[in-house]
């Protein structure tokens, strides 16, 4: 079985304590809200309480008159109201979601900021908006964005007016769908739904922005997931050149895709206040503001139809996947590229027709959240597969074994899987080690109970590693040797809590041959290194680290040359151990330390650093058919969940989750396991409790008293199973893991609930009412 541990590396495949842990454990680590600079004042935002309204008048005079209030800005006071990425810094006169910012203030203290916000008077004229996917697509729905388009023959059409975000439309056309269905012995059609979900990182968004002549114009210290992306907002808001706007990432208290838009807007707003007051400005979102303006996981409506032969081979697959994009959006067009590519699951299906698009509604925007559409899609597809198995009377594991993608098969985009693909082995391993069939039998004895029933389910999935066809996957790294024999590594990708610093340290050590303890990872400073794209898409290790690998190998070669010169031999006769170069085969007398080598290079004027830029491979899909090579490679996952459902209350107790992942090469088992365990907890929330309820655009959860995700008491028994395989696409053969770790867990739990209750789950989360009745009663219904 291809389990972890058979690969031969010096530093990879080995446990290493995280390089940033000590500072975090002792409280020394500084996060953005911990930054304090001389002369600093505070900023705040006034947010509207309507989902769709026209601003008739804003009167800021009373706020401005308060002593200690230094600036009150509205649309008319700033160079531009709308950011480069669609989202508004300040409302342009129409507010389109609850929480849209209509004014910003700066004052001496946070108390004065609050006083000033309260003193601003705004008169609104409320409008009727659209709030749901169904509402946005209604025939006579109001059009809430000028760029929205309508449907023609059921498909988005540029010449029609409506609420569809056209850039986010991706069709997949493979084979001949009509022929496929005409040859099918069995056809089933089902619909599924998922809600808004909040990232719930424990650190709220924060920044300090100040004038900084050393940097050019301004420097921002920010809780930015993607500092270069944040720089775009900073420069854009104050209309300054990028090379004079510097963003420094502080230690980041979790992000999961969330600290992008709101952090960018906040930095832009703070910069506007800095320019207006000439003082450094700190802004920290309250948790309520974070709920109101940070992106959410996209709600999706799915409709799938599948055609199978009588022996269980899927030969036709049709689908519509519609995402709720919210009022402003610059994410759904990328997210839906991925959603479309994965719209037929991890299955080998000859005839596919799917359409994926987003709609504008008067809600908070949806964005990136760990998975980037996959948790929703896998939930829907895997429930559908189990419904098919049940209706056809075939075993759900057999159905998967029969259809799962294997080496040599074609994906939905007709990409041929050339690398080793261990899907069948993974399914078999997970079935055996979880004793799936024994437990299924045992649990079925509880299925008549009126009190507690147990259920088990297995789901399988895959995920394109890195950006793939979404956008070019390039990046650069700088590796510098210093005269005392220590190493600095620097890249444009960021530590977001996932362990990137540690993984990059191991990758650099592997390349140079030195130990990990002499390497220091420089935090991201946009003035210190070129933009390497975003730390998203679980690309940090698999693709982003390619340049780190190459730069460190090249630096290792240079160092070895100097060592060989000092040892009076050829470079290929020299190796390094414990930071000492030695002649291979010598008895250890001929040695020279890394420090001496570095020192010699410095004083002989030799290069001390290597910068490597790694260019993307040749990938791309045809926009009309969705056909083409979509990703450099794919990660595979098989997850088994076991639950107990209280049939009186509907309470779902998740007993155990066993999560198996093909990671290609496991860089660090500690961080990989940490990702898997954390992914299980987040997937449990997605499956069972997490939903930001919205009622006509009003968020009904704005803090952790009503938005519930798992505590230490709630989490199940967890089993992490790490598979490896031979696949040369990623850095040292590594594949994505951050998102795979969570994407299938909610699906597995929902399927286990369906197994326990006998009622299919078609909408998440499996909260109390839905679990028992298959629908939600929380909006105005009654529980009998």
């Amino acid at each position: 079985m291809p389990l972890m541990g058979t690969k031969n590396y010096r530093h990879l495949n080995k446990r290493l304590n995280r390089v940033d842990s000590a500072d975090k454990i002792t409280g020394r680590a500084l996060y953005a809200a911990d930054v304090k600079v001389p002369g600093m004042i505070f900023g705040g935002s006034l947010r509207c309480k309507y989902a769709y309204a026209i601003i008739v008048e804003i009167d800021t005079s009373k706020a401005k008159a308060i002593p200690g209030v230094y600036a009150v800005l509205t649309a008319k006071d700033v160079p531009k109201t709308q950011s480069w990425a669609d989202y508004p810094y300040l409302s342009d006169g129409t507010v389109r979601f609850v929480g849209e910012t209509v004014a910003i203030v700066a004052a001496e203290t946070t108390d004065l900021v609050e006083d000033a916000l309260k003193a601003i008077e705004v008169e609104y004229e409320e409008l009727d908006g659209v709030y749901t996917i169904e509402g946005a697509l209604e025939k006579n729905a109001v059009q809430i964005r000028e760029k929205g388009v309508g449907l023609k023959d059921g498909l988005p059409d540029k010449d029609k007016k409506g609420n569809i975000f056209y850039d986010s439309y991706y069709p997949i056309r493979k084979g001949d769908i009509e022929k496929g269905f005409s040859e099918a012995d069995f056809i089933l059609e089902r619909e599924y739904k998922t809600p808004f979900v909040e990232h719930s990182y424990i650190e709220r968004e924060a920044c300090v922005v100040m004038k900084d002549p050393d940097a050019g114009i301004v420097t921002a210290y920010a809780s930015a997931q993607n500092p270069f992306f944040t720089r775009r907002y900073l420069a854009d808001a104050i209309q300054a050149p990028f090379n004079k706007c510097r963003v420094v990432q502080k230690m980041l208290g979790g992000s999961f895709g969330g600290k992008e838009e709101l952090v960018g807007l906040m930095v832009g707003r703070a910069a506007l206040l800095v320019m207006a007051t000439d003082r450094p400005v700190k802004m920290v979102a309250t948790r309520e503001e974070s709920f109101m303006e940070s992106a959410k996981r996209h709600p999706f409506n799915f409709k799938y139809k599948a055609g199978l032969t009588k022996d269980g081979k899927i030969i036709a697959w049709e689908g519509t996947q519609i995402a709720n994009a919210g009022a402003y959006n610059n994410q759904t067009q990328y997210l839906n590229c991925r959603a479309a590519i994965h719209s037929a699951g991890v299955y080998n299906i000859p005839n596919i027709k799917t359409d994926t698009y987003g709609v504008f509604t008067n809600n908070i925007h949806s964005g990136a959240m760990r998975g980037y559409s996959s948790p929703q899609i896998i939930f829907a597809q895997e429930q559908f597969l189990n419904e098919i198995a049940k209706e056809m009377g075939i075993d759900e594991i057999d159905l998967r074994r029969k259809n799962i993608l294997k080496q040599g098969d074609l994906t939905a985009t007709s990409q041929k899987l050339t690398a080793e693909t261990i899907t069948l082995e993974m399914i078999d391993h997970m079935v055996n080690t979880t004793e799936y069939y024994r437990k299924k039998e045992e649990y079925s004895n509880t299925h008549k109970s009126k009190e507690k029933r147990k259920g088990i389910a297995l789901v399988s999935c895959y995920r394109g590693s890195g950006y793939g066809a979404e956008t070019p996957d390039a990046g650069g790294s700088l590796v510098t040797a210093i005269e005392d024999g220590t190493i600095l590594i620097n890249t444009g990708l960021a530590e977001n809590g996932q362990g990137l610093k540690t993984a990059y340290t191991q990758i650099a050590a592997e390349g140079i041959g030195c130990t990990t303890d002499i390497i220091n990872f420089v935090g991201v400073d946009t003035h210190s290194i070129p933009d390497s794209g975003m730390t998203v898409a679980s690309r940090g290790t698999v693709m982003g680290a390619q340049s780190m690998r190459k730069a460190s190998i090249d630096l290792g070669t240079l160092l070895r040359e100097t060592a060989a010169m000092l040892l009076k031999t050829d470079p290929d006769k020299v190796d390094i151990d414990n930071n000492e170069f030695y002649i291979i085969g010598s008895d250890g007398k001929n040695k020279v330390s890394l420090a001496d080598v570095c020192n010699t290079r410095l004083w002989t004027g030799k290069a001390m650093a290597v910068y490597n830029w790694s260019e993307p491979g040749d990938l791309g899909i045809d926009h009309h058919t969705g056909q083409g090579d979509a990703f450099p490679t794919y990660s595979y996952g098989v997850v088994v969940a076991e639950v107990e459902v209280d049939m009186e209350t509907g309470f779902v107790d998740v007993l155990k989750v066993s999560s198996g992942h093909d990671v290609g090469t496991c860089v660090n088992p500690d961080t990989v396991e940490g990702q898997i365990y954390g992914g299980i907890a987040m997937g449990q929330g997605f499956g069972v409790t997490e939903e930001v309820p919205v009622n006509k655009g009003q968020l009904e959860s704005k803090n952790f008293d009503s938005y519930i995700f798992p505590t230490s008491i709630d989490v199940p028994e967890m089993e992490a199973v790490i598979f490896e395989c031979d696949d040369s696409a990623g850095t040292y053969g590594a594949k994505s893991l951050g998102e795979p770790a969570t994407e299938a867990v909610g699906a597995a739990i929902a399927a286990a609930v369906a197994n326990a209750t006998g009622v299919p789950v078609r909408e998440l989360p499996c909260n109390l009412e839905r679990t028992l009745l298959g629908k939600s009663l929380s909006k105005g219904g009654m529980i009998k």
Partner: protein
Amino acid sequence: MNKIKLVMTVNKKNVETEIEPYARLLDVLRDKFGFTGVKEGCGIGECGACTIIMNGKKVNSCMVLAAQAQGADILTIEGVENSDGSMHPVQEAFLEKGAVQCGFCTPGMVISSYHLLNENQDPTDQEIKEAISGNLCRCTGYKQIINAVHMAADNMKK
């Protein structure tokens, strides 16, 4: 409003300052004294990022008025290290067991674990889970944290 003179002991040092009567202990610790290891996550007593020990009791400092800490003996994450500057066994175990990811919950988690081990040298899984149930973590799934507390308990017995 009249300011209040606040005198307390934080991490074994006597400190004093002037505060507004409505100031939260969390803000006073962070802003007046620079104990920024005490984090704010929710501000409503739900997440535990602001956990400290006050007069031997574990509290959420966002829910305590600074004025209530008059004369109190307070321990924050900054005071958990041994007097020689080395890490406390709880901290060592968090490092060794991979119990830290983004680290934002970590100060509160360490304080809760430290507090538990002061009262119970040999906690069961369930007792550990209960002790840290007021500390939300979005990254780790808690498993490596629970392992770390067991390891710390073992090491402290040695």
